[in-house]
């Protein structure tokens, strides 16, 4: 898949790097992230792996502070570039840091309006520009060819995989500097999984991508940087070599188990 013409994220944009220092997140009395300190390099695909319930999704949700909306308590520091996220207005932060959830959620509008909904909030566009943008972002996720005749169809009628790709397109249309995806391919077949992976690889030239996955093969295919988490803690961070030569016993055990 090629990036469509007119891709509007400027190469000159100051692309951020995420740094967390002693990040702690708790829901009621349960601590989910414990003294989480890590760095996420810019213009790379960072893959977060770890067993279910270890806090991977919570980590993503704490970067754009959605965790607080869910009743979580966040302490410690998170920096996007050199800016502490607590100094940024939440709307600005969330426009910079897009997040796609594991369960695809479409808004109760047509497919077209699902894209226009965030687009019209952040940008002033003419009707023709709106139509171009809708086409462009749907093309990026490979959805346009499948539904170009039915753009006014209610989005809930799409299949699970199509909904997920619509969610990704909707997130891309706000032109985030960092794109975070929580198991984005869990509802996709292999063909669409590969096309999303290709898209992410192309996107990393312009933006930073952080992805949570349980699919080790996928992680190996796309990862530039890997974080392995266990029980709310960062166990190991490193480049692609983590898959072949993990330093920590927990990482080794997890990779062996997932390879089994």
């Amino acid at each position, binding site marked *: 898949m090629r990036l469509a013409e007119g891709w509007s994220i400027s190469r000159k944009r100051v692309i951020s790097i995420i740094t967390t220092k002693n990040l702690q997140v708790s829901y009621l009395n349960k601590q989910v992230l414990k003294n989480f300190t890590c760095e996420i390099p810019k213009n790379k695909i960072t893959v977060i792996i770890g067993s279910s319930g270890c806090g991977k999704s919570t980590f993503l949700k704490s970067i754009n502070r959605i965790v607080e909306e869910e009743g979580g308590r966040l302490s410690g520091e998170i920096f996007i570039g050199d800016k502490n996220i607590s100094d940024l207005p939440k709307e600005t*932060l*969330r426009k910079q840091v*897009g997040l796609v*959830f594991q369960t695809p*959620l479409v*808004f*109760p509008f047509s497919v077209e309006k699902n894209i226009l909904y965030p687009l019209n*909030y952040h940008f002033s566009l003419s009707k023709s520009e709106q139509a171009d943008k809708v086409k462009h972002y749907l093309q990026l996720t490979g959805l346009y060819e499948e539904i170009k005749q039915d753009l006014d169809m209610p989005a809930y009628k799409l299949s699970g995989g199509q909904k997920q790709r619509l969610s990704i397109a909707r997130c891309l249309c*706000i032109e985030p500097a960092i794109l975070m995806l929580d198991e984005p391919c869990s509802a996709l077949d292999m063909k669409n999984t590969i096309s999303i992976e290709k898209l992410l690889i192309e996107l990393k030239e312009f933006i930073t991508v952080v992805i949570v996955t349980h699919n080790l093969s996928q992680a190996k295919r796309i990862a530039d940087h890997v974080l392995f988490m266990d029980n709310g803690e960062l166990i190991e961070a490193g480049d692609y070599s983590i898959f072949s030569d993990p330093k920590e016993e927990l990482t080794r055990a997890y990779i062996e188990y997932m390879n089994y």
Partner: protein
Amino acid sequence: MIKYRNTLLKLTAWLCGGLVVTATFFIFGYILYHGALNITWNFVSDRPRGVPIGAEGGVFPAITGTVYLGALSGLMAGLVGSITAIFLVFYCRNRYVKGIIKASIYFLSGMSSILFGLVGYTILLHMLGMPRSLLAAGITVAVMILPFITIRIIKLFEEDSTELLHASLCLGVSKTYILRKIILPSYYINILTSITLGVAYGIGAAAPVMLTGAVLNAPTPQSVTQPFMSLSYHLFILVSEGISLTNAYASAFLLMAILLVLNAACRGLEYFKKKGD
């Protein structure tokens, strides 16, 4: 043994379900049978007459009074209830504040209707010096149906819209934008239904209006500061004073007809919304 237990459980469930359906049909059928026989155009369009008042004539001012009361209380409780629910679900993040507001609503929902009448009478008529009026009764009924409406709307929002909210917030849009573009357009029919059902519950209660605004005989109110007739209170007086059981059944039939129309309107709105989706 397990087979017998399952059969017993099924039988009990069927029995209970059957009991509910029988009770509902019996009450409706009984009132329909006794009430419909006494409904005449004169009864619907005339004002109460005779000695004692209500023994003859009709209940037209009571019908209009009941409709006005429903509209007024529904407007007040609907506004406050919807805004409270929106605040609690979408804006309030302090769980202590949330807890206090929710506990207050649940406490209010457990109060009996006569207590609302008594408190309305003491505060509105005695302390604030308001006249016995449609307004005083409307406020009292609004407070009574407020928890009913608020709880339903909170439940509606909490069940369906928090995921939409979080997915929207992740796109960097404001909560006001989400409310305006997604939540309110998606749920306004359900909100209206909650308000309508609350109104149906409110206009059927005699206790909160008998001390605050309803009277035995009055014309259709021309302003909210005038006393008014209510079908529920009229029915109560006709039966408790032994004035006319036939007219009481006819009044009950009309009250039930209004409640049925309101319920049918809710179902109709929901049906057309589903069809539209």
